[in-house]
């Protein structure tokens, strides 16, 4: 897949932003196209989640721009953005007991007015989203009774119910077991193959490498490296940014694997 063919869905230009007027991320240039998955990696506190929120538009940029379909987010209304971009958060606390179906139903909100009840089209989108994450049999289960992994799948379904063209995923598998991690990865892969763009914030290199076409590495709020995995996966990057010595294993026809060896000599 050549970059020229794909239209950029989301573009960040010299983006700086943070909480309360301070800048946590600085000077970020980033692009995501349809059918492309970009992974954002970096040590704790590098600003990955902040970047994601800036890209989603729920945190306003201090300087620079985020452009969705060529138009700055400043000129987009929240609901319009929500119809295009879906953010899957790390976790959500449910203060009140909701069923799986009710939670996923919430994902249709960007398409519904305040007084309109959901139409058959909306119900179809909800059912499709639940089916895609494989939870059709648990539609009426209370969300409190689901395991962590299942809950994360429900959150994904909720985001999918709004039928976004771009997915923003904030460490979605941080608390999941291996099985659910693979399930999740499989679903995202399928979506990307269908033309949905994705920005994935992850800690886990190997999970990210499974899905990502391109990588961004953040360090102290700036881009330390970006590009194809072959370009980014270099020993000195890991040494500088993460302070560890790693071994990168390349396999035929598969994603590379990163093996941490030991702490780097300082």
């Amino acid at each position: 897949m050549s970059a020229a063919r794909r239209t950029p869905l989301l573009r960040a230009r010299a983006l700086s932003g943070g909480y309360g007027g301070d800048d946590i991320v600085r000077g970020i240039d980033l692009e995501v196209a349809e059918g492309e998955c970009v992974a954002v990696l970096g040590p704790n506190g590098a600003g990955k989640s902040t970047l994601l929120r800036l890209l989603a538009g729920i945190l306003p940029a201090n300087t620079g721009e985020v452009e969705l379909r060529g138009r700055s987010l400043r000129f987009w209304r929240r609901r319009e953005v929500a119809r295009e971009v879906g953010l899957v958060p790390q976790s959500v606390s449910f203060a009140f007991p909701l069923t799986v179906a009710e939670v996923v139903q919430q994902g249709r909100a960007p398409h519904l007015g305040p007084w309109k009840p959901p139409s058959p089209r909306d119900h179809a989108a909800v059912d499709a989203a639940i089916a895609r994450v494989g939870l059709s049999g648990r539609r009426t289960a209370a969300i409190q009774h689901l395991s962590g992994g299942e809950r994360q799948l429900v959150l994904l379904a909720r985001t999918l119910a709004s039928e976004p063209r771009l997915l923003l995923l904030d460490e979605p598998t941080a608390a999941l077991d291996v099985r659910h991690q693979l399930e999740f990865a499989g679903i995202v892969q399928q979506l990307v193959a269908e033309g949905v763009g994705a920005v994935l914030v992850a800690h886990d290199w190997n999970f990210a490498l499974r899905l990502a076409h391109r990588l961004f590495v953040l360090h102290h709020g700036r881009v330390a490296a970006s590009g194809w995995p072959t370009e980014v996966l270099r020993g000195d990057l890991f040494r500088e940014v993460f302070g560890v010595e790693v071994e990168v294993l390349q396999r035929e026809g598969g994603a590379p694997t990163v093996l941490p060896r030991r702490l780097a000599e300082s």
Partner: protein
Amino acid sequence: MRRGADLTLVVVLLAAAAAGLVFGGPAAPPGEALAALSGGGTPEVRAIVLGLRLPRLALALFVGASLALAGAALQALLSNPLADPFLLGISGGGAAAATAAYVLLPAAALGAVPAAAMVGAAGSTALVWWMARGPLGPSSTRMILAGVAVNAATSAAILTMLALAPSPRLPGVIAVTMGSLASATAGQVAWLAPYVVVPTFVLLLHGRDLGLLATGEESAAALGVEVVTVRRRVFLAAAALCGGAVAFAGVIGFVGLVTPHLCRLVWGANTRRLLPRAALAGAALTALGDLLAHRVLSPTELPVGVVTALLGVPFFVLLLRRAP
């Protein structure tokens, strides 16, 4: 089951309303009261039923709906099952202002007490909002903490005033702090109506948004909710509803907290569906509570807040044990 529940709610509400009009003192016994409702009856009985009981019932319905609706909205807004207009200090300000007015004003000016209560509620709302502000606007956690602080302060102020109040004014002050619908007039109901109708409209408008906010402000924003705007509107609407309730009925403390929970047990936690049902349930509960408050030990009147608490708790326990 849900359709049946809706019907039951409407029936209970209508029955509570009818009972409030039909049962009362011996001057208008139930038979004659019924006659008055259908157009007949003596002028005296009609005056009692329509001039005394009807405003009182209307006030009870308005106040109950307001408190329950505000409670449900605040619980969703703050993602906190314990959120309650009284916990958040909104009514504390209203009650403190009303108490101060009652103690300080000359008797001729006592009609200004409801206005004082409204101002007080607005003041404590503003105070809570100001105390809770942070870089991204007021956060839910800070709002709860600020509300608890303001509540403590206003409670202390009220207790101080109670201790220093001249004894003739004491009954009025107690009526404010323990809730009383006894002095309801048609004029009061008319005054209160906009403070009920407009905020109710605002809250119902944002029913879906509130449901999303209940799962967190970030995920709500990601799904298209203008969090800052909605939060401000909902808080103001809830404050207006409670300010109005305290202004004309004093502090009736249990309805706003428990009615939404009772409704969730029956209709589920979908906020958009919950809000209108919570309003109707709150109206019915308060009307029934007021009826019991002035009939059970007739002619002695109990404070209506005590009765709503006594009514709500066993009902709540019953439903909790039935729920899966």
